[in-house]
């Protein structure tokens, strides 16, 4: 995973002026970044899918993108990241969604109050026209005291004017309450921008400058700023009473219980059909078994076998059963890659269309009962793609308590796309009864552990408050680029771990340690889980990655070592098993070591306990 330290990403000459892009979530900020720098970045429709800062160059300036925020403060991680970039910017390009101008200008006014030279790009002018709204751009510019350029960046409209305007960025009109109080605290800090945040009681900035006494002006300033923004909006915006556009009506239908839940069910079913059936079975059969399993396998074995033989250590290590040149690439490219691409493709469509926040609204009530709010559906859905990435996005959740619950549930019960693919392939032939039992058990563990954590953890969870972006038809280019970027990141992360895993297993096998371990665990595997003792090998593989473990089961099934009931039990155990090494590393980074250890060991216990209990019933 990329690190979030901004200073490392600001490349080369320190003297270069910093042009920082600032805006609310989903205003098209990233498209401006691309247009200026020519570099593609993630265009995200959900606040919180990334807190990475992209930087590039435009003429002699360093251009930095920031996460979408509604204001500069430290309510959450994105805001803290954005704040630190904005504080030390030389010029700010503020992208405003013209359709939501009343919301967006709050941030604009705050940046102006910081005393930074600003240019405003008034974006999405096409939607403004479509909805019968008129905006007096000259008056807006006059009121704010900074250049305002109308744009529809998606079509490239206004880009040239904007580029010219960047040379004329100006410090705008600050609100009176700021003008009055700023001089009082100015000497405590190095910059005007910091002084504003001192007035606004930003705890990080106060701490950095060792300021303990504050006047407590945040509420007053926010109120004054809100009043000023409303005043400006009333002056410059005219609504003609045109009927709500189709996209707005559709957005409402998607949130009405009668339409919303059935649509959600259909979306999930289609996703399963596409990823779980089409990709996991049809496509994978072709990529894994034919392309990689036959053509590639024959090629590499024919190439290396004459040189090193099959039975030597090197032969086993490179091209044996768990060979780093056989098993690892076959699983990574034949199995993982198609699944991950399929999953991220669907997710990108959901993100870019604005559907994801609506899923959060629909699931809010159910998630409340396990101590989460609707926002948590994002990491949970992401978890089906990659638990590691999902664990990072638990940062969007409002309290430590929620982050712990979500992380624990992700680590315990959510199988990632790669694992899900193997599981789907193994369980589908067993028939509906087995599939239902599997889903029921996993769901039960999910609900029970969530409910118990919600009961025993101290504190209170936060409530949902989420901005619903308008529904938009995703741009195919963006969807594909995003799918590409995320899939590549996934493979780069999973690939080396698979190679490492394959190497470790080969060594354990060659030295006979694997048998020793298998025998040592026989009481659990054979006695309690009622599985052949060789299954222990799959679980050892599972410690490295759960999908690697599932792949081990796949191998056993193809050799006819497990009967249908045993497959079910093994799958339950491997699903609930410890998260992969990458995810565990992220968990340890994000949570305290005590919490992390509880999650990791808890997964072991719950996994074997659940599978064992099921085994007592069905075998």
């Amino acid at each position, binding site marked *: 995973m990329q690190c979030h330290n901004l200073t490392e990403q600001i490349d080369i000459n320190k003297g270069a002026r910093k042009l920082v892009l600032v805006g609310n979530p989903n205003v098209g900020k990233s498209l401006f970044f691309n247009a200026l720098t020519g570099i593609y970045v993630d265009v995200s429709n959900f606040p919180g899918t990334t807190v990475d800062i992209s930087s590039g160059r435009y003429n002699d300036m360093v251009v930095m993108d920031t996460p979408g925020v509604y204001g500069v403060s430290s309510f959450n991680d994105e805001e803290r990241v954005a704040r630190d970039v904005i504080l030390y910017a030389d010029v700010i390009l503020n992208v405003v969604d013209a359709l*939501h101008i009343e919301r967006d200008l709050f941030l604009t006014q705050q940046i102006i109050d910081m005393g930074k030279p600003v240019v405003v790009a008034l974006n999405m002018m096409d939607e403004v026209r479509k909805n019968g709204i008129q905006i007096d751009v000259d008056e807006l510019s006059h009121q704010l005291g900074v250049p305002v350029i109308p744009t529809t960046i998606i079509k490239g409209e206004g880009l040239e004017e904007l580029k010219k305007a960047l040379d004329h960025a100006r410090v705008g009109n600050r609100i009176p309450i700021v003008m009055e109080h700023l001089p009082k605290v100015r000497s405590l800090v190095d910059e005007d921008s910091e002084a504003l945040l001192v007035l606004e009681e930003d705890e990080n900035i106060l701490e950095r400058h060792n300021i303990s006494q504050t006047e407590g002006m945040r509420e007053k300033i926010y109120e004054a700023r809100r009043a000023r923004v409303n005043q400006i909006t009333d002056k410059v915006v005219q609504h003609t009473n045109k009927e709500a556009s189709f996209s707005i009506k559709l957005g409402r239908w998607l949130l009405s219980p009668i339409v919303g839940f059935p649509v959600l069910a259909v979306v999930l079913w289609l996703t399963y059909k596409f990823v779980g059936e089409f990709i996991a079975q049809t496509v994978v059969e072709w990529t894994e078994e034919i392309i990689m399993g036959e053509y590639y396998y024959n090629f590499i074995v024919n190439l290396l076998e004459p040189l090193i033989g099959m039975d030597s250590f090197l032969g086993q290590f490179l091209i044996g059963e768990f060979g780093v040149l056989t098993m690892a690439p076959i699983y990574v490219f034949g199995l993982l890659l198609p699944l991950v691409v399929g999953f991220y493709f669907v997710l990108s469509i959901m993100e870019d269309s604005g559907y994801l926040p609506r899923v959060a609204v629909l699931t809010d009530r159910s998630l409340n009962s396990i101590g989460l709010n609707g926002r948590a559906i994002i990491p949970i859905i992401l978890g089906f793609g990659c638990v590691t990435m999902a664990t990072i996005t638990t940062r969007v959740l409002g309290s430590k308590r929620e982050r712990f619950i979500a992380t624990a549930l992700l680590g315990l019960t959510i199988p990632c796309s790669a694992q899900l693919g193997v599981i789907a392939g193994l369980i589908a032939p067993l028939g509906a009864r087995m599939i239902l039992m599997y889903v029921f058990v996993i769901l039960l563990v999910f609900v029970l552990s969530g409910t118990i954590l919600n009961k025993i953890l101290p504190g209170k969870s936060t409530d949902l408050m989420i901005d619903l972006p308008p529904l938009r038809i995703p741009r195919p280019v963006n969807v594909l680029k995003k799918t590409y970027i995320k899939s590549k990141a996934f493979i780069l992360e999973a690939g080396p771990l698979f190679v490492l895993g394959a190497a470790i297993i080969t060594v354990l096998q060659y030295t006979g340690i694997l048998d020793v371990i298998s025998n040592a665990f026989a009481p659990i595997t054979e006695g309690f889980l009622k599985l052949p003792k060789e299954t222990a090998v799959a679980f050892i593989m599972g410690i490295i990655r759960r999908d690697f473990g599932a792949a081990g089961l796949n191998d056993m099934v193809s050799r006819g070592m497990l009967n249908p009931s045993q497959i079910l039990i093994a799958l339950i155990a491997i699903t609930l098993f410890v998260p992969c090494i990458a995810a565990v590393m992220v968990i340890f980074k994000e949570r305290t070591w005590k919490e992390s250890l509880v999650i990791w060991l808890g997964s072991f216990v719950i996994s074997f306990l659940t599978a064992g209990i099921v085994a007592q019933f069905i075998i």
Partner: protein
Amino acid sequence: MTLDQASNGQRFQVVSIADRDISNQAIRLGIYKGAKLTCTGKLPGGPIIIQNKMQEIAIGRGLAKKIAIQVL
């Protein structure tokens, strides 16, 4: 009355928001004491959808109970 009691399509004015931390965040989205808003949707036992000009925001049930409103 509180926001969770608002009915679909009702126009109302915010009287107060009990939680200070929340009110500091809500003001940026256009939800603040005195704001005139419309309830455009309600999920049974779940969030309330409110509209402010072209902007729609979903508010969890628990939070809606902390927002006092007055029907217009």
